[in-house]
């Protein structure tokens, strides 16, 4: 690492930003409530005003964790046919796919619906817990890199829509009973939508590196 060669003076680096989509350089300014900065060249979003502070974010992450547990242990849907009833949970679904010669699908579902969302929430919780005091958590840089790469691989919202389609398809032949798990999933979907609108990179600006 030849860091000193690359590093701009801290003030200069914080005053500038580069559009990720087209490499245009801008001078940063404080955004007022409800404002969004967009790139003049390619129209991508540069920055949004963040209404939710680190404390608020931490509260949302903790809520999401509770809902995530519920979404995973409660059954999602129950089907009935001639008095016989079958219900399933997320893990029931994953195990079923594994045993039915579709291990690839089982791995995809376990990753995008369980492990990646879990990793995202735990990492975010860890980072935010320290960030609310303006500190960088141990392993901050690694945690931020994990968040950057895990980001696009959580698909809980797609699963909710998938459950809806499955219910409608099954409804023709069976009695369908939505279970609490599906509602927990719907709430989780809302929370994830809120996270998605927050650029976590601002945590770099909100925290200070510990004196080396």
């Amino acid at each position: 690492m030849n860091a000193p060669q690359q590093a701009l003076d801290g003030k200069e680096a914080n005053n500038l930003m580069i559009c990720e989509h087209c490499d245009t350089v801008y001078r940063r300014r404080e955004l007022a409530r409800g404002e969004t900065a967009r790139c003049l060249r390619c129209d991508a979003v540069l920055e949004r005003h963040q209404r939710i502070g680190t404390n608020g974010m931490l509260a949302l992450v903790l809520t999401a964790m509770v809902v995530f547990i519920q979404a995973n242990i409660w059954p999602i849907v129950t089907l009935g046919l001639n008095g016989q009833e079958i219900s399933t949970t997320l893990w029931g679904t994953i195990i079923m796919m594994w045993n039915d010669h579709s291990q690839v699908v089982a791995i995809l579902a376990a990753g995008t619906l369980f492990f990646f969302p879990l990793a995202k929430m735990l990492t975010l919780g860890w980072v935010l817990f320290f960030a609310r005091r303006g500190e960088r958590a141990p392993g901050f840089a690694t945690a931020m890199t994990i968040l950057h790469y895990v980001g696009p691989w959580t698909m809980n919202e797609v699963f909710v829509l998938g459950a809806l389609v499955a219910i409608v398809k099954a409804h023709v032949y069976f009695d369908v009973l939505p279970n609490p798990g599906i509602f927990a999933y719907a709430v989780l979907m809302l929370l994830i939508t809120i996270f998605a609108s927050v650029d976590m990179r601002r945590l770099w600006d909100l925290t200070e590196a510990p004196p080396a």
Partner: protein
Amino acid sequence: MSSLPRAHELGLIGCHVCGLVCRDVPDLHDAACPRCGAALHRRKLGSFVRTWALLIAAFFFYIPANVLPIMRTVSLGDVDDNTILSGVVELWVKGSPDLAVIVFTASIVVPMLKFLAMSLLLITAHRRTAWAQRQRAKLYRLVEFIGYWSMLDVFVVALLTALVQFGILSLVEPLPGVVFFGLTVVLTMLASMSFDPRLIWDSKETHD
């Protein structure tokens, strides 16, 4: 210098992971972001080759994903194999045209759009044309945003398999088509991630 300076014109480089603005140096070999430690690049590495390779691989999986059945329904000895398209048709006929449209969009329109859009972006960026740059930039962001919704059908099959287990009365099994389809979605997502949208703007002539 234009009114909207680009990073290389100012001797700057943005970290692709944390966004920090750094100073560009002629030899970027092993240069790392001073803040997050990620390797610094002016453009994503091997963007054209990687994106083409992933896109072509995705297309090879996309053919069996559509031709092979994705799901088998057995009820009282009556076997019915469904492909992605026949699943959509069934949903339409059995009285949920709105959901049929959603599934059709997620499973058929979105993957097709991704193949066409990514090929168009790759070819135009490679030719370094200044044609419709803003629209191409928007097309790329659309592809990135909608890409993962294609997993919809995979989750539907998984859930139905887990639920419809009534022995000889009624049974649903996944068939190989669904595995190919899941792989197609993952590969197209990787393809759109490895494309660097900055390449759209690296045209031979600049107009601004």
